[in-house]
């Protein structure tokens, strides 16, 4: 069904189509419309799920943990401060191998408090053991949520679908919503490998000392590595069933023979596509690499996609303070032990600062002229740095 919907509502529709047994969340801008829409569905009876309005994001994450532990399909959504408040539970959900699905409506992190979009929140918890998928537009958000439950439940690993706050959550776009029967065929009811049930008592979350802790982490790590093939396969199966494909782990665009390849995650890819087209018209061969799956990190896919490329610029809306953009650091890891392109970090768009087509083109032009590896913030206001204003 074709519908013209705000991104948040489209996500809520996708979640409803996945027939969750439990939905629990706590409102925070810019995720609020997702929770409000799900509340409306519950109130009108169109979403038949346990529904809990928690007292905090910490509580919400704990509630979905409990729901998942008894064998339910559980969903939550948050942003920014909410995600950070959840952090202890987030690591715990992954360690307990509970296939919760969460939407992170990406937003900057305080201080200074700022409700606008960047990706510092989800990038900061990359090591938690959650699969992280970043979406470019609202159609991909819908499709990725449906895939997310399949991936999570097959692997018993939680999945976070990261979508840029406001840019996607608050943008009205046409989206194709699959029919319920199609989704039911693609996503059968959750059959947990283990769950809490008085008919078969089971201890979950035991204390594990040095004699075995490391092996449990190794298992999770290896299963995360294995997740790469599952994520790819699920995307392909989704394409077969629904006719839409947004890339598996990464998606390369005009990379072959490119002088410069720009890399990013999320909605910025849309702006970058425009920039690349204009640059090609101007005679500069620029390619794009979209990182759809940030955890597990798709080293091989990146490596393969960038074969023969000499210059790479990573444009990202987060920064590992005291180093560089986090995605950029990780891109370098894809070439460990081999000849690597020059990979530069461009930190842009923090706290909702606009990133223009022209700024992206400028990055590409400068990299073409001087490929030397560097770390730069772009779009800074000189007058604020000098302290003339504010």
């Amino acid at each position, binding site marked *: 069904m074709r519908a013209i919907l705000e991104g948040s509502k489209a996500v809520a529709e996708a979640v409803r189509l996945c027939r969750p047994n439990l939905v629990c969340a706590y409102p925070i801008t810019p995720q609020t419309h997702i929770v409000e829409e799900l509340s409306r569905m519950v109130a009108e009876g169109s979403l038949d799920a346990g529904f809990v309005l928690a007292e905090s994001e910490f*509580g919400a994450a704990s*509630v979905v*943990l409990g729901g998942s532990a*008894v*064998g339910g399909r559980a969903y939550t959504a948050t942003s920014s401060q909410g995600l950070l408040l959840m952090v202890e539970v987030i690591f715990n959900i992954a360690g307990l191998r509970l296939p919760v699905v969460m939407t992170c409506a990406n937003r900057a992190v305080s201080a200074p408090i700022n409700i606008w979009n960047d990706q510092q929140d989800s990038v900061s918890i990359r090591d938690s053991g959650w699969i992280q998928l970043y979406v470019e537009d609202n159609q991909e958000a819908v499709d990725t949520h449906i895939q997310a439950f399949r991936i999570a439940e097959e692997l018993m690993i939680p999945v976070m679908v990261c979508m840029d706050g406001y840019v996607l959550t608050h943008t009205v776009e046409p989206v194709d919503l699959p029919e319920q029967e199609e989704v039911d065929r693609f996503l059968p009811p959750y059959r947990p490998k283990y769950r809490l049930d008085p008919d078969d008592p089971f*201890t979950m*979350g035991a*204390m594990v000392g040095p004699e*075995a802790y490391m092996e449990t982490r190794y298992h999770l790590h290896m299963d995360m590595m294995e997740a790469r093939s599952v994520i790819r396969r699920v995307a392909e199966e989704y394409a077969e069933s629904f006719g839409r494909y947004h890339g598996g782990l990464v998606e390369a665009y005009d990379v072959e023979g490119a002088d410069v390849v720009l890399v990013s995650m999320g909605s910025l890819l849309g702006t970058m596509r425009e920039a690349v087209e204009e640059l090609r018209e101007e005679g500069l061969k620029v390619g794009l690499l979209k990182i759809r799956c940030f955890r597990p990190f798709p080293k091989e896919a990146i490596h393969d996609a960038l074969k023969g490329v000499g210059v790479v610029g990573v444009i990202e809306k987060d920064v590992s303070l005291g180093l560089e953009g986090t995605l950029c650091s990780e891109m370098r890891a894809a070439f460990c032990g081999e000849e690597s392109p020059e990979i530069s970090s461009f930190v842009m768009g923090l706290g909702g600062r606009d990133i223009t087509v022209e700024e992206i083109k400028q990055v590409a032009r400068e990299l073409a002229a001087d490929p030397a590896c560097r770390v730069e913030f772009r779009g800074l206001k000189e007058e604020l740095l000098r302290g003339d204003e504010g």
Partner: protein
Amino acid sequence: MNEEARRVINLMEPGHTGCAGCGQAIAARLVIKAAGPRVIVANATGCLEVYTTTYPRSSWEVPWIHSLFENAAAVAAGMEVTLKAMGRYEGIKIIAQAGDGGTADIGMGCISGMFERGHDILYVCYDNEGYMNTGYQRSGLTPLGARTTTSPPGRLSYGNRTRKKNMPMIAVAHGVPYVATATVSEPRDLMRKVQRALEIEGPKYLHILVPCVPGWGYESELTVELARLAVETNLFPLFEVENGVITKVKKPKETRPVEDYLRPQRRFAHLFRPGGEEILDELRRIAEENSRLEPGPVRLFGPTGSKS
């Protein structure tokens, strides 16, 4: 004995690594015995969690989960709502349990949310009056004057400066339909309260005083005796509140002076040295207040409606 029969007798198996004489172990075994096998337990981090589930062993013959220190109430809430939504709740009881720290300090937010939303959960607080698992630090339920590793007596201190936070009344103020206190010297009373609680639909709060051998500093055979003395000195009153009304107060047959309870415990030893008298007086006042507890409506004011 067949497997099923064995289970019913020992839903929390012995052989765990708790201290000899651990009051919490006695209480937890009584709680699960009274609740029976058709339960699911969410257990907070703390002594009980650590010594009953040190991998690869587990004492639990019921489905049991440990997530974190401060979220047992929320994990239990998620279980209850989900089982109901899936049509699998029939005949199952859910218990959330934690220490005094996991309850009255760090877990307060999740508990308040669980109470307020009215989940059908029995919440059990095992109150040993300190963070025992991490080495006997002070909690919000440590009594006035007690020595803990973070409230040591010294030139400028007579131990813990605060009175016990009134957790049962905090539960009552949430409109929790059944709130009770218990301790290990009254095992039948304790088990009856668990069973009474589980008959009631909605949130239930059971606060159990559980002496801790090393944390309180006494000989391990005195656990039950100290629990009895806590009641007989009126420092720990036993009562039940249903829908905002105190229905029962289990008065001690004979009342003893607070010193009888305090003296055997090293955590109060400094109170019997010069200067401790002021704190002792205050403890006597607390006991005296408690002794006046009578059945009748709990006097709460403000916009509190009890759900019945």
